[in-house]
């Protein structure tokens, strides 16, 4: 008998799922399809009155939330609790989560809401449905943490410390952030934290805290291992922070330059625009290897390719200096190689007359560095260089003269052509 009724329930929910999917022939689902169908009087069984009412109520709550009408939303929410009495078990089970999410949203923003109200609501919600107990507890703790109530949050969570590893697979920000504060001073939790950060994902705050903890206890090898895994495990997304953390750790450890370069090389491949790239360039410049010198030039060009870095005066300064250095070192081919892929767009991207005027107006030092680079790469006929070299500025007169001289000496453009 019990088997039979279970069978019934299962088939019913499966049925529901199948029918609630609203697809076209392409496999795409359209949330607004039901609205279109609703305009046509089709046959078939209509939703129960109660179901219609509850879905309308949910709509009202969402609308009020989006209009920031917290009081109205609260009023509607008051009615929505009735869904907990729904005879449809599927809906009844899903209801507490919706109520918690919308309710916490309302209480978070409602002008008359207080921490006490939130606490009461959270405590009540925790007791509806076992599945929600943990989630709500953790989000509640997050709320308390953000209201500076560390003690309460701790008390709230302490019960669940044992069970939290069950939670490690749950992708929940509240859990993560809340737990971090709870655990980062507790050696006991290290095992669990370790398990968590070995799961593919982005665990920046935990990795940081965990490494801090390991370093605090003097476990340098453990910390390095954690960071290396976090950076190089292929199952993880290519998170630039993983490499940055590793690099910073190695730097703290005073690791050899070669090691640092190898870490930054990978960061360079992922994020060539990162501000550490200038540090990378410095390391490469100081290196003895010739291919590192070549890479040093590549890195500088790479940084300046990006829209967010065009006004980075340090990068331009480095490039101007390094170009001269490279050319003096008889490595014209390196420059030409880098320039080959950029010559058709760098002139209008960096060295247009618009930028000449605007850079000169905003930052004369930047304009001078760029003019030097432009002169070397494009020759003295280029608009940017011409504009800057024509400027008559008392302070920079000497500098501009120098630039003219270096351009004359180093320009990669064959004046005969």
């Amino acid at each position: 008998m019990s088997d039979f009724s279970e069978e019934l329930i299962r088939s019913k929910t499966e049925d529901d799922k199948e029918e609630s999917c609203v697809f076209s022939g392409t496999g795409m689902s359209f949330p607004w399809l039901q609205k279109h169908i609703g305009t046509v009087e089709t046959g078939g069984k209509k939703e129960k009155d109660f179901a219609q009412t509850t879905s309308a109520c949910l709509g009202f709550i969402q609308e009020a939330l989006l209009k920031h009408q917290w009081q109205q939303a609260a009023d509607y929410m008051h009615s929505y609790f009735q869904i907990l009495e729904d005879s449809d078990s599927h809906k009844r089970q899903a209801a507490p989560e919706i109520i918690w999410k919308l309710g916490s949203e309302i209480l978070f923003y409602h002008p008359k809401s207080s921490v006490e109200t939130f606490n009461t609501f959270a405590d009540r919600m925790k007791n509806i449905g076992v599945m929600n107990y943990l989630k709500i507890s953790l989000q509640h703790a997050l709320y308390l943490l953000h209201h500076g109530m560390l003690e309460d949050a701790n008390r709230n969570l302490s019960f669940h410390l044992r069970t939290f590893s069950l939670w490690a697979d749950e992708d929940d920000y509240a859990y993560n952030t809340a737990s971090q504060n709870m655990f980062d001073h507790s050696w006991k939790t290290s095992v669990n934290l370790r398990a968590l950060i070995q799961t593919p994902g982005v665990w920046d705050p935990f990795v940081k805290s965990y490494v801090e903890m390991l370093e605090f206890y003097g476990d340098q090898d453990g910390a390095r291992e954690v960071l290396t895994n976090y950076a190089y495990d292929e199952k993880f997304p290519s998170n630039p922070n993983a490499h940055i953390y590793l690099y910073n750790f190695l730097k703290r450890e005073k690791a050899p330059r070669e090691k640092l370069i190898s870490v930054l090389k990978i960061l360079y491949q992922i994020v060539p625009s990162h501000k550490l790239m200038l540090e990378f360039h410095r390391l490469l410049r100081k290196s003895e290897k010739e291919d590192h010198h070549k890479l040093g030039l590549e890195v500088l060009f790479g940084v300046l390719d990006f829209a967010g870095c065009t006004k980075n005066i340090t990068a331009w300064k480095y490039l101007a200096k390094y170009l001269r250095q490279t050319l003096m070192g008889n490595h014209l081919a390196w420059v030409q190689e880098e320039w080959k892929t950029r010559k058709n767009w760098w002139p209008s991207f960096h060295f247009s007359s618009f930028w000449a005027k605007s850079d000169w107006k905003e930052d004369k030092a930047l304009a001078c560095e760029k003019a030097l680079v432009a002169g070397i790469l494009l020759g003295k006929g280029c608009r940017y260089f011409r504009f800057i070299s024509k400027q008559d500025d008392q302070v920079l007169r000497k500098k501009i003269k120098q630039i003219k001289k270096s351009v004359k000496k180093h320009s990669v453009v064959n004046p005969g052509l």
Partner: protein
Amino acid sequence: MDFPSSLRPTLFRTGPLGLSNVPDMSFMCSWRDTLTLPESLPKNSENGAPHLSTGLLWEPETPGPLPLLPPGPDPWDPGVTAQDLLFRGGFPFRRKPQAVLDVTEQLSRFLWDHGDIAFAPLGKLMLENFKLEGARSRSKKKTVVSVKRLLQDLGGHQPWGCPWAFLSFRQRRFSILGGPVLGKSVASLLGELLYEELATRWEQLLLDDAFTGGALAWVPGRTAQVGQLVYPAGGALDKLCFQEVSLTPGGDPQALGDPGHIQLQGPVRQVVTRTVQGESLLAVRSDYHCALWKVSKQGRPAPLQVLQVGKGATGISLSPHLPGELAVCSRSGAVCLWTPQDGLQQVYKDPETLVFCDPSPWRWADFTAHPRVLTVGDRTGVKMIDAQGPPGCGLLLFRGGAEASCQKGERVLLTQYLGECSPESLHPTLHLICTQFSLYLVDERLPLVPMLKWNHDLPSAPLWAQLLPPPRPGCPQPLLLGGQGGHLQLLHLTGEGASAPRLAGPPQSLPSSSDSLSAFPLLEPKSQWRLQERLKAPTIGLAATIPSSASEPVLSLFQLSVAGDVFYQRLHLQADPGPNSCASTASWTPQATACCSRWLKALLKVPPAPPVWAAPTFSHRRLLGRMEQREVEPKGPEALRAAMAEGRLLRQRDLGSLPSAEPPPTPEPGPEDELSTRLEAAWEGQLATWWERQQGRSSGPGRQPKRRKRRTQLSSTFSSLSGRLDLSDATSPPHSPDRASPEARPRPPVTPPSQESTQELWARDVPSERQQTLRDYMARLPLQGDTPQGVSLPLSQTSSIRATPSRPQTLPDGTAELPPRRKTLRGATVSSSQTSSIRATPSRQQAPVLSGSQPHRKKPRMGF
């Protein structure tokens, strides 16, 4: 550039889309998002709770948007609805209603409306076996059958849907024998095509991606207070308008003067503007063409280039880095970089979709923080492509799958590069990706893992988005999200420097144009319905700007509807986000209601769109009557006498002099019927204009209308008598095609009637005629996608492209530049020759427009 020093923790899962189609509720909670990461807590914990802008709110000035420009002169019809496409019958065993396309009804409508088209070819084939007149065939061969009696039995009317209609045995026999042959050929030929067409229309109704990106753009002017709106106008959306608008800090936006316009050769689908290095550029996408203009400081556009896209363009983007550089995508799956100097460069080509198989040919491309790297998107994902790298390489930026916890059936609808704002704003590496359920912010430096996900829950497809600069230094940036149904959502994004992007407060919804209904005076039901439909017209473009000079930031938001209406609303950033900040309800000002009334008055002056479909009239009496008329005519009096003598009923056809060319009373009112037009005008609230028109007519030269009126009255009184009178004169409006069509045409009198009508209709190229009529039929049915003309235009364009296959301008192959036709611009004088040359040239465009707006003429039917 800085990378966020600590990212939000997330689990990284790989795999396909979620199997569950239950909406994911976990991204509905904004409060957890607005909280900063705990590592910044110690700093904040001194002063208790961290600073949260809970009261962040853009308050609308009015409860709904207001019209900015008067309505256009072209009538607009809402077009196809679900009711026109879906089957209305019941499925008693289904638990929930389902969408089933109703092909049978459309097919039967077609058969009734265009039976001549459907059956004539067969009839023509069988003509030699049937005899329409004369006595029984004397030949021994039994291959010719006389159907005279059969036609007589029909008696002029077909018993459509009437169960008590009299069916003679002849009729019954004929329909049993002929039915399978006649029905099958039509159904098999047409049914498939019709189903295909209906399915396309239905898909279009669910998601019309042609306007992705939006067809409205704001070009900033010389000062912050003045700018230009660029948008398409006209019934076919083929007139690109440039309307100067002034934004005064205190008052409503004002349209300055009349808009300048450029007449294009196709409907405008997307308008993009960008100011790069002080140069304002304007790119326009039509179905098969893309064009680029440079807008001068004075606001005058100068054409740069036109590109023809053979397979159809789906998206166009202007580079934020290099002036004049564009990315164009084609339905063929090709993405090209396009500069006026260097022409086209194909960057990517793959007819397949990126992540999994999806039939949609929609492609999209945008730029990234690296000027040589583009994003290429389709329904399944987004990829980053290096234009200089080897072909085929790239890195997936977004994958429709478990990585972004996508749900079943989720598809990418829009991708946009958000990195064009000022340096103190969000990271210039962020991309917005919208699906029908959620929006994602993805950083190109950390592919596949969204930095932010928000369940937007819009009730229509989000096809346009705009990131605005921060209204004040340090304020979160507003991100506008617009749905096709006019729904608007505003998100507050923050996260510069070393912090990750996040929501700075709960998102808010903005009023849509259907909220403006309350500002209009109450009308009689028909006009009210028309107004309502107009306000509900799908949105096709969105533009917003925050003039920087104003002391209090004001967001001006413009919305373009498919009916061509531009509405605006102004939003104020709530001054002090205090604890008691709550949305106050805006109310209508007298100026606002006056503005709406003026607009409404202008709208009601626009003639309503002609009915897209009218019930057909069934009669072959005309044909039969004429046929018999010649025989019977000389013996009219005799027939009467005979009838008298025999004591039988005098039938109409017995009286040869009183032929029966008058069709049976039609449900549509003829133009001669003054009473009904007057009633109709009164019903529409246009009695005054009707009266004026009437006055003007009667006071005009001649007393033609008066006489005509009398004649009309007569004709309706003695309908059987008036048939022979030629009522159709040249001035008769095209409302009564029945009266005008057969009789008005000169015809040789000696041809046998059956053959005559055959020749008249079918001696011409039958297949093409049939095609055209089918097309007309499809255009006329209430099945139209966006505009009444929208259907015929692409068709004409296709044919135009087909006609010139030798042109090397298709997108994948190469480019050819022809300057866009410049017709009228504000301030520029129009030379008449230019105008006329343009008027004369786009014949392929105008012809369908005309045919589209004219009610169609019913043709005489064959005898079957």
